[in-house]
């Protein structure tokens, strides 16, 4: 989807909608440039796709949860499930590492683990592993915690009281998607700073 958007954005804008897309895409790339510098243009499509995916996953339960409940469809918010968020975090990290290898080669990739000193190796490994845990737990905890609050409020007062909480849940859902996306950017940027830039 974002690749499509990007292709549209590369051409000169011909209609109003493509001009709007152009502006949005420029804005996203500018945001990415503050972390990645010159690599923003190639890295942003994937990260933006992840952002849109998490955003829809977060919102789908808030917006249509009652509809699914009424129709008896056994569907729950995907990101309120620890397996989904763990999968997303692992995928994100694999993508970051493979992106780095593709652009800078295996040698520089291995060097990262031994920077700044060789005995930092276990700490570096630990750092990369905790990133996965914290990414997945943060997303899962926020979304499912918010759902728990809404459920408890609905239990106490089934009429109208949960509505502001659901609105807050929409807001947190957006913030969490944004945080996930930005942390992906930050991790990639940090990796490029550590391994790619200062060795050239």
């Amino acid at each position, binding site marked *: 989807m974002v690749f499509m958007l990007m292709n549209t954005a590369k051409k000169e804008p011909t209609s109003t909608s493509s001009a709007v897309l152009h502006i949005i895409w420029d804005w996203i790339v500018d945001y990415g440039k503050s972390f990645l510098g010159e690599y923003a243009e190639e890295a942003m499509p994937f990260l933006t796709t992840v952002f849109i995916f998490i955003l829809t996953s977060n919102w789908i339960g808030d917006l249509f949860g009652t509809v699914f409940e009424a129709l008896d469809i056994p569907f729950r918010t995907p990101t309120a499930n620890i397996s989904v968020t763990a999968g997303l975090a692992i995928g994100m990290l694999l993508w970051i590492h493979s992106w780095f290898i593709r652009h800078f080669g295996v040698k520089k990739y291995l060097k990262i683990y031994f920077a700044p000193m060789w005995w930092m190796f276990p700490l570096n490994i630990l750092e990369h592993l905790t990133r996965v845990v914290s990414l997945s737990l*943060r997303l899962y905890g926020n979304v499912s915690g918010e759902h728990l609050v809404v459920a408890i409020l609905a239990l106490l007062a089934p009429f109208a009281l949960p509505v502001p909480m659901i609105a807050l849940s929409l807001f947190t859902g957006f913030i969490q998607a944004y945080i996930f996306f930005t942390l992906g950017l930050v991790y990639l940027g940090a990796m490029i700073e550590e391994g790619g830039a200062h060795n050239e």
Partner: protein
Amino acid sequence: MSSLVATILAVSFPLGLAAGLAAIGMGMLASKAVEGVARQPDATGDINRMLLLALAFIESLVIYVLAISLVLLFANPFIKLIGG
């Protein structure tokens, strides 16, 4: 004391403590960020970004406590040991 009461206490007190302490930290962070923006309105974008990131890191600590609480409430591994 039944294990249900023990579980509820073990879940609610640490979560409240963690949320309160994190709220203090977040308050400090937000006040400093607002000061920074007031002093230097040009840097609003950068400060905003860093503020959100730092808030996310503080929040994740509370989320760890919440995750432990959820495990204790809904998937308690110790409940079999003490027999309900």
